[in-house]
Structure formats: C-alpha cells, structure tokens
C-alpha cells in the first residue's frame, strides 16, 4: 500500500510538479477552445455550402470527410508535422495540432449537421418557400435551427472526443497536460504526475460534459 501511494500520490512530487501540470492544462484549454470553435464553424459552413451547392461540391467534400474520419488523428498529426517540412512548409507543433484536430472535428461535424438538415421534413422547406423566402433564408431561419437541435447531442459527444485528442500533441512536443506529465515522469521515475494529469483532465471535462447536457436540454423545443 505504501509503495502504491508512493508511486501514484507522492506528496513531494505533487508539490513540485503542479505548476507544470497547470501550465499544461492552460495549453490544453487553449488548443481545445480553438479546435472547437474552428472545427464546429468549418463543419457547419461545409454542411451549409453542401446544402446550397449540389453534387459538384458533394464529391470532393465526401473525399475530405471520409479521409479525416477514417485516418487516426495521430497519423495525421505525425504526417503533417514531419512530412510538411520536406516540402518547405514548417508549422509550429501547436499549429499542426490545431489544424489536424480542427479538420477532423469539421469532418464529423459536417456529417452530423448534414444528417440534421436532411432529417428536417420536406414540408418545412416547402412552406417557407411558398411564403416567398429565398433558399438561403429558408436554410437560415427554418431548416438550420431545426437541424441544429437534432445535431446538438452528437455534436457535443464529438466535441468532447476531439478535445481529448489534444493529448496527441505530446508526440510532437506541444506542452499540453500529458506532455508536462510524461516529462515529469521521466525525470522522477514516478507515476504521480500522470495521475495528476488525469485529474487535470477531469477538472477540464466534467464541466464541459455538464455544459453539454445543459445545452441539450435547453435546445429541446416543446413537442406534442
């Protein structure tokens, strides 16, 4: 028991490591916030353009979406971070992580919003157009608000999943939580910093999950 406590809850290590874990938490929050904003906005935009554009847009979009949903984010992170410099493009590790996670989230978000758009009854569209609303107005005021209500739950799940992937930043040296923790582990040979990292994730995600539930219940409109 003492050995267990010593290797997972070493008080001295906690005292010396917490500033590093905290700075990692800040970096994780920064990336997560950026990824959520750009990923969701891009996914929403893609779904809306797909709605308006028709087939010529659907094919290349499908290619992008399927690619970014199929390839593990870790592979994409490595590919871009170590591959792009060979063609003369050098991105900082933070930017690579932001870019990859945003695109992955956008791919999923586009499919989720699209599924919501096509789930809205055809009659809604017809009623709106019959009053003289343009196609774009119909999308913005009638179809999209209903689609987003359907999309909120899966979007929340996907958002949580992608923000957890910020941990992948550790392999390219982004100083986020896990990077700080593993560094501390390798200096101390003790697992306590990892447990602190796990705790930091809990601290970050429990409120986000709660927020997701709140949004879901807020967005459910009164039905018969």
């Amino acid at each position, binding site marked *: 028991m003492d050995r267990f406590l010593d290797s997972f809850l070493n008080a001295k290590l906690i005292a010396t490591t917490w500033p590093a874990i905290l700075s990692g938490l800040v970096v994780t929050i920064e990336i997560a916030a950026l990824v959520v904003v750009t990923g969701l906005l891009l996914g929403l935009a893609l779904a809306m353009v797909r709605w308006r554009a028709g087939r010529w847009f659907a094919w290349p979009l499908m290619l992008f979406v399927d690619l970014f949903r199929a390839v593990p984010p870790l592979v994409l992170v490595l590919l871009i971070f170590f591959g792009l410099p060979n063609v003369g493009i050098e991105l900082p590790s933070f930017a690579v992580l932001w870019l990859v996670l945003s695109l992955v989230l956008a791919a999923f978000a586009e499919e989720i919003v699209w599924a919501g758009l096509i789930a809205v*009854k055809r*009659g*809604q569209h*017809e*009623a*709106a*157009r*019959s*009053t*003289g*609303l*343009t196609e774009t*107005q119909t999308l913005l*005021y*009638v179809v999209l*608000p*209903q689609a987003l*209500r359907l999309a909120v739950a899966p979007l929340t799940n996907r958002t949580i999943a992608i923000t957890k992937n910020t941990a992948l930043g550790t392999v390219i040296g982004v100083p986020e939580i896990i990077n700080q923790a593993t560094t501390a582990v390798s200096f101390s040979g003790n697992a306590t910093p990892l447990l602190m990292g796990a705790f930091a994730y809990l601290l970050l995600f429990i409120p986000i999950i709660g927020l997701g539930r709140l949004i879901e219940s807020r967005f459910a*409109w*009164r*039905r*018969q």
Partner: protein
Amino acid sequence: MSEASELSAGGTGTMRPPHPLLDIRGLHKSFGTIEVLKGIDLAVSPGELVFLIGPSGSGKSTLLRCYNRLEEASGGSIWFDGQEVLADRIDINALRRRMGMVFQSFNLYPHMTALGNVTLALRKVLKKPRAEAERIGMAALEGVGLAHKAASYPGELSGGQQQRVAIARASALEPGLMLFDEPTSALDPELVGSVLQAMRDMRAAGMTMLVVSHEMRFAREAADRVVFMDGGVIVEQGPPEQIFGSPRHERTRAFVSEVAR
C-alpha cells in the same frame, strides 16, 4: 410553352389579360415516364372559389403545386395576375408570396411561436420592421380567432389551431390567391369546422381560392365552381349543383355517388 415565355420576357408586365386572375393552358407534368397531368386548361376569376375534386392520384395536388412552382410543370403555361409564372426570368419569390399556400400537414415551424410563424416572411420577404410585422401578424391571427395563442408553439396547439395559424401565415402576406392542398384531411372530425370557418371568412372577404379537398358538403355550400379531375385531365366542371346534382359524365357520377355517403 416557348412562345409564351418569349411573350412574357418581351412584355413589361403592363399587358395583363383582362379577366382571369389565374389562367392555365395545356399544363403537363410528368414524373419520369409517368404523366400525371395531361393537358390542363383552367381559368380562375378574381374572387372565385374553385374546388378541385377527384380520386386520389388524379393529379389535383400536383396541379396546385405547379402554380407556385413547388413542382416544375413539364409543359404548358400559367398566367397569374398578368405574369407568366413558368417564365425563366420571373422573380419566383415575389410571385410565391402573392400565392398563399396551405398544406395538408400544416408545416408550421416548430421552433417558432404562432406569431413567429406568421411574421417570419413579413420580416424577411417584405422587410417590415419587427413592430409592424407583429401588428400585421396579430391581426392575421385575430382573423382566424387565435390572437390569444400568439405566444404558443405549434406543439402546444391542436391540429385545427395549427392549420388556422398556417392560414394566418399565408394570408398575412396579403396574397392575391390562396391555394389549399387538402387543408382538413389530417384533422380529427371535430376540428374540421374551425378551419372551414376560417376559409369561409376568407371567402367572404373576397379572396380568390383554389381548394383541393374531400369536404364535399363545404364544396356544395361555398364553391362557385367544382372541377372534377381524373387520370390527369379535367373530366367535368361546373357549379356545385351540376357536379353534385346532375353530373354529365359517367366518371363524375360514379365518383360523386361514391363520396356522397
């Protein structure tokens, strides 16, 4: 078709045909290889209430939906208020708001209140300021007896109330013509009366109306003209006394005796 298009493209809109508000000539509509409308000629005068009846699949709803181009006709011409509806360069949104449409399934926007449903097009199509749109919207709801439900969401209203809100949504735009696509077919029998009353009031106010419906009693009582369609053609038309009392065609007779229980 092409001749008519050229006419309208060249015209300035000032040369309106004198009599009918709506004038359909040789209208065809096919879905793939299936021809649903096989050459429809129909003219509707201002203030007239025309009832379209016929067995299901006879093309009544499709015909109605061709008028505001929710369906694109395959051939023929439609003149509405001096404009060629099927012309390529027509402002379809301006046209649609002058043809109100009421659907079988109401199609109210579930995320908006009754008033929100009525005011959306007033604000976004007619660009009215919110206060004015709401004043007009309240008057329209008042007209169907539902001003007290302005803040209710569609899910909180009965079917009959929803359909009356849908009628208010269309009539608030002051259309020149109202199209009703089986407005009472999805309603419980005890709710039909309130919707028919709203339509009666609308007719009394002088609205031109085209109604696809199975409410034969209402047709008999309120229609100026009844048009019987079967198999994509107009078989017979005339005043309700003729269609229901002494139909000339065998098919009309068979249908009328079938529905008159």
